[in-house]
């Protein structure tokens, strides 16, 4: 089977607008969560989020193209440029390269601005670029244009599993021989008035802080940004002398087929076991788990039970980095895969922030407060989504 490795990573998120800054923040235990600064935030009940602050797209992207880019595309392009530069990827791989990016809400602020114009402000026309800005494939397609990738290019939209499913599909494209290089990950820009207002109604957002697996938790905190990873067929990477960051060893996805919002540990167990089997690894081979760990009661207890069922009483150390970069929804799996690279490449397990006290219903070895040093050969990264979707990646030293 063709092996797939990661040769570049890039990100824009609330912690930093690049990988070095993100690694530093994750290592030092800084959180990107703070007061929301966008228009009409004062009309919300929930007024915190992990925003990309002081974002100046003109500092990163050609001014002539900006009218085409919703923020979700801006983040994807800047993260993608960092990943491609790190990989040293030549331009114009043509049909042997592709892009699969996750996003849950696509260009939601373009929807919001346009509806506001016609409904609230009584205007009779909107920008002619509304459709190409808001379509879910805009971030993926603009990455294909920027880097000359003419093979499989599409978006995956499966709520909080989007990025993990996108990366799983990218892995499969390369394994199958359909491509040699795939840019993959996710992008999200849901922190606008309508985006948060919609989430508020479900009563699952925390008003103060995200506290995964901790007593005192009050729910999730949304985060914006993008994470892009360069997946590459191993011999293709070795032949051009690329630095290999990790191997994408396994992937599996399952559907609970039960409830549209409530998680089912059975589905999470099946996805973790499936990903381990795909990687040819046993639970004892895994040295770290980057959990989905949203900080909601439902997820954290269900995920803890699933981890104990898969790994028994000796589960590896667990981190949720969502209290740092926020819940990136369709991008979150990409942020977390990048955190896994930190663990694999530098032996740093980032801490779970916001921790107050152990929850007896969450019997996992939680890395909290400060980072933990550990030599890990393989890690898993969980993503579980509304819709009952579970997607698990296994990364290991290459």
């Amino acid at each position, binding site marked *: 089977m063709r092996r797939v490795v990661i040769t570049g990573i890039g990100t824009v998120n609330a912690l930093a607008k690049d990988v070095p800054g993100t690694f530093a923040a994750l290592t030092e235990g800084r959180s990107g969560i703070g007061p929301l600064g966008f228009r009409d935030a004062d009309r919300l009940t929930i007024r915190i989020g992990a925003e990309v602050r002081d974002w100046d797209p003109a500092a990163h992207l050609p001014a002539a193209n900006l009218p085409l880019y919703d923020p979700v595309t801006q983040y994807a392009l800047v993260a993608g440029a960092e990943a491609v530069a790190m990989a040293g990827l030549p331009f114009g791989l043509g049909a042997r390269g592709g892009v699969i990016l996750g996003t849950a809400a696509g260009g939601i602020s373009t929807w919001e601005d346009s509806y506001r114009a016609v409904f609230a402000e009584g205007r009779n026309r909107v920008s002619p670029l509304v459709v190409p800005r808001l379509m879910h494939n805009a971030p993926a397609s603009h990455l294909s244009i920027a880097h000359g990738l003419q093979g499989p290019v599409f978006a995956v939209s499966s709520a909080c599993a989007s990025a993990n499913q996108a990366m799983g599909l990218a892995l499969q494209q390369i394994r199958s021989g359909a491509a040699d290089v795939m840019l993959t990950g996710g992008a999200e820009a849901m922190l606008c008035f309508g985006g948060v207002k919609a989430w508020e*109604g479900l*009563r*699952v957002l925390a008003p103060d802080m995200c506290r995964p697996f901790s007593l005192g938790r009050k729910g999730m905190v949304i985060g914006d940004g993008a994470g892009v990873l360069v997946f590459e067929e191993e011999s293709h990477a070795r032949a051009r002398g690329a630095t290999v960051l990790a191997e994408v060893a396994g992937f599996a996805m399952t559907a609970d087929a039960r409830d549209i919002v409530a998680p089912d540990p059975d589905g999470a167990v099946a996805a973790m076991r499936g990903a381990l089997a795909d990687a040819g690894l046993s639970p004892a081979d895994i040295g770290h788990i980057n959990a989905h760990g949203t900080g909601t*009661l*439902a997820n954290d207890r269900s995920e803890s039970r699933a981890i104990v069922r898969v790994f028994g009483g000796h589960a590896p150390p667990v981190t949720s980095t969502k209290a740092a970069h926020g819940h990136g929804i369709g991008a979150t799996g990409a942020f977390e895969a990048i955190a896994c690279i930190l663990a694999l490449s530098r032996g740093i397990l980032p801490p779970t922030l916001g921790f107050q006290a152990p929850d007896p219903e969450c019997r996992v070895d939680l890395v909290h407060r400060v980072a933990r040093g550990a030599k890990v050969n393989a890690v898993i990264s969980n993503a579980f989504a509304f819709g009952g979707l579970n997607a698990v990646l296994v990364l290991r030293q290459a």
Partner: protein
Amino acid sequence: MTAATRAEIEAAVITILAAQLLLPVSDVAPDARLDDLGLDSLGKVEAIFALEERFAISIPFNANEPDLPEFDFATVPGIVDGVAGLIAAR
């Protein structure tokens, strides 16, 4: 709107819960417990939304804090008391 009486609030609570449960109003007793009625988590947030719209109140309910309820959503009388308190504080 003139202040709703307790009977009016109770009737509205029962009507809203019955609509969520797809039950006739007569099947939701004034002392019913929500767990016994079988209201799931989405039904609960939909019922809260309907009560907020009906009485122009904001109900402090977070699905992650079932053990620390600012608003007792466990029984019909608890909901009626909570709504009445929020209307009085409006």
